[in-house]
């Protein structure tokens, strides 16, 4: 799979989209919950999912090493790239 840790600047059209690209931290939790680990999907407990999300977010220095992630705190994480998205065609929605 692709690297999970990377810079939070996306200034080239072919920049690798690592975790800091995501608009919301919940995207990370959701994809790990549904799809990961790749070889054994859907095997982690909710506690493990939050712990793993926290670990990956802290590796990217988006949260502190001792910050606790749970159903309340994870959605409140402000991702570095959050304000850079444009909806392509609002009339399609």
């Amino acid at each position: 799979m692709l690297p999970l840790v990377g810079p939070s600047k996306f200034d080239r059209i072919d920049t690798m989209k690592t975790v800091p690209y995501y608009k919301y931290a919940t995207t990370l939790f959701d994809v790990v919950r549904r799809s990961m680990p790749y070889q054994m999907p859907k095997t982690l407990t909710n506690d493990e999912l939050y712990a793993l999300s926290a670990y990956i977010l802290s590796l990217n220095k988006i949260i502190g090493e001792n910050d606790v992630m749970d159903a309340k705190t994870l959605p409140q994480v402000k991702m570095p790239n959050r304000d850079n998205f444009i909806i392509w065609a609002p009339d399609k929605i």
Partner: protein
Amino acid sequence: MLLGRGIMFAGAMGTGAAGSLTGAAAEPLKDDPWSLEMGSVVPAYQVPSRFEKDVVRTRSNPNNEFRNSHARTPHHLLQGTVTPNGLFFSISHSGLPDIDPAQHKLVIHGLVKQPLVYTVESLSRYPMVTRMHFLECSGNGAQMFSNEPVQATAQALHGLCSNAEWTGVLLSTLLEETGIDPKAKWLFGEGADSLSLHRSVPVKKALDDAMIALYQNGERIQPGNGYPMRLLLPGYQGNMNIKHVRRIKLIDQPAMSFYEAKTYSQILPDGKMWLFHFTMEVKSFITQPSFGHSLKEPGYYEISGIAYSGNGRISKVLVSADGGKSWAQAALQEPVLPKAFTRFRMPWRWDGQPAVLQSRAWDESGAVQPLRPEFVAARGQTSTPVTNPLGFPNQHYNSITSWGVDCIRVRRGHGRRRNAWPRQADQRG
């Protein structure tokens, strides 16, 4: 020299009454070995002749490594508009699930009045529709974001799109049965594969022309295309057409799932990113002649290719043989169907000199396939040449494909022979 539409064949050739297109004189027939013995028995499920063994999909992961895999349609070896099921492109992010159709269930729930469960068997009792539609990976052709031309076949560049006749039940029929809570603005589709591949789709699209497809070109959908049922969203990014669909949950806002928030979102040159770029926009490319073909001699050839648009029907295709300096209108093969492949054709007399073949399409919404300079101005290009012909430097490439036909070459070992190989021409414009 492009010969325009509806021109008489003999006139196009200019060879006179005794001439033919290829110059081969009629010879008396002889009895070949296969004419002198009984043939093989007809098989239960027929496959192409052994002489067609090279007409196959190319695979990105032939050694079954632990990652995704793609198989691309050999457009340069096909004709017409229907992609045979065995050659229909396929992308799998985690391998093909081996689904027992008797146990597969589709649940529609969330913001509905009455959640319901459907099976292959129960869906077979609902009113069905049959429609011709293309599917295209939104990364199809993305190598062409390269700042230098990529030397690759139409299969490598454009093989992640295909066209089939789909039969199934309109999603609107099922949603009529479950009822929709007015708060529902999106639906969340999820597949039965190991990744539970998932996307958010506007309810607006679901009520327009979305289908739960069960059949592909008359037979059950192929495993690589979503067996036993898939969500079909005509004209929208391939990835949104959830394969092996098992869940449709109606929700009030998009889930911001991995595939919409990351993989199928595009970085723009100004540092902004597009979300929810659903429509596969108007596009065309020439398949004959194209990279890998050789032209034996100057003379008559038919330029032919594929055009399609996620907005609706193709309205016009122009073809150029001089790199876009002059254009002529190609004939469109009827029927021209919305959100489906349209075959275009143009007679061409090659004078043996270098030529650059291009096509450009328009659709009924008025959208036009962008020329390379305007596309690059809006969407950017890479800063270094793309060296991996299977890479995805960005998404949603729909600009022009140029095939350069080289001048006459000398081929070793055969004396002086006239041969030309279409290659991808410089596109920097």
